[in-house]
């Protein structure tokens, strides 16, 4: 299991290849990548991601351990950035490896749902129209109830 909280950019392709190369006997690998996107209407210039340094790593480890205990997984990778990002920058990724695809898919969705609402990150968007903290969406909180 590999959980990284970092300011630096990461390369999805290298991470995905390295993750697959580490596995043995796993038939299924799922990755999710979150990307800074332009907003409807207002042009986004920067996205600033604040986090709670003392808590972030622990919160992500807890989420990853929970996924490992619920599904039959070979491995988990989580990378989440903080700091100043721009449109098209990669914000974060998760990867899961399993013998069977259902485990890999479900674990990746679980990781994403908990990462969204239970890991201490906050996004601030700077657009032409001004600066705004991204509000949590009710549907993100609701998504937790399915697990």
């Amino acid at each position, binding site marked *: 299991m590999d959980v990284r909280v970092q300011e630096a950019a990461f390369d999805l392709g290298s991470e995905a290849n390295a993750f697959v190369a580490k596995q043995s006997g796993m038939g299924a690998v799922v990755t999710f990548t979150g990307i800074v996107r332009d907003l409807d209407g207002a042009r986004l210039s920067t996205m600033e991601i604040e986090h*709670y340094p003392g808590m972030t790593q622990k919160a992500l480890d807890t989420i990853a351990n929970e996924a490992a205990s619920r599904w039959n997984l070979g491995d988990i990778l989580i990378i989440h950035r903080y700091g100043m990002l721009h449109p098209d920058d990669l*914000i974060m990724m998760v990867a899961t490896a399993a013998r069977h695809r259902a485990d890999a898919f479900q674990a990746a969705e679980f990781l994403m749902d908990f990462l969204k609402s239970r*890991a201490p*990150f*906050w*996004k601030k968007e700077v657009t032409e129209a001004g600066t705004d903290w991204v509000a949590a969406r009710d549907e993100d909180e609701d998504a937790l109830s399915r697990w």
Partner: protein
Amino acid sequence: MDVLYFAWVRERIGLPKERIDTPPATVMDLVNELRAREERYEAAFADLGALRVAVDQELSDFDAPLAGAREVAFFPPMTGG
């Protein structure tokens, strides 16, 4: 005990961190103590439904006790991923 603020809570209060020498009994007591201080605290804590709290870096509740706690943090709902 350290009290930490993140995101717009930090911006409204105007500082990221402060020390409280005699911790109150519960998180709610701490909130009430802070609210009583100044307008900017009152503004930050106006809607508790829009706030989350962590005690010693674990998500917690407003009725959680603070005995022995070393760090309390207030912040809006998280928006990672």
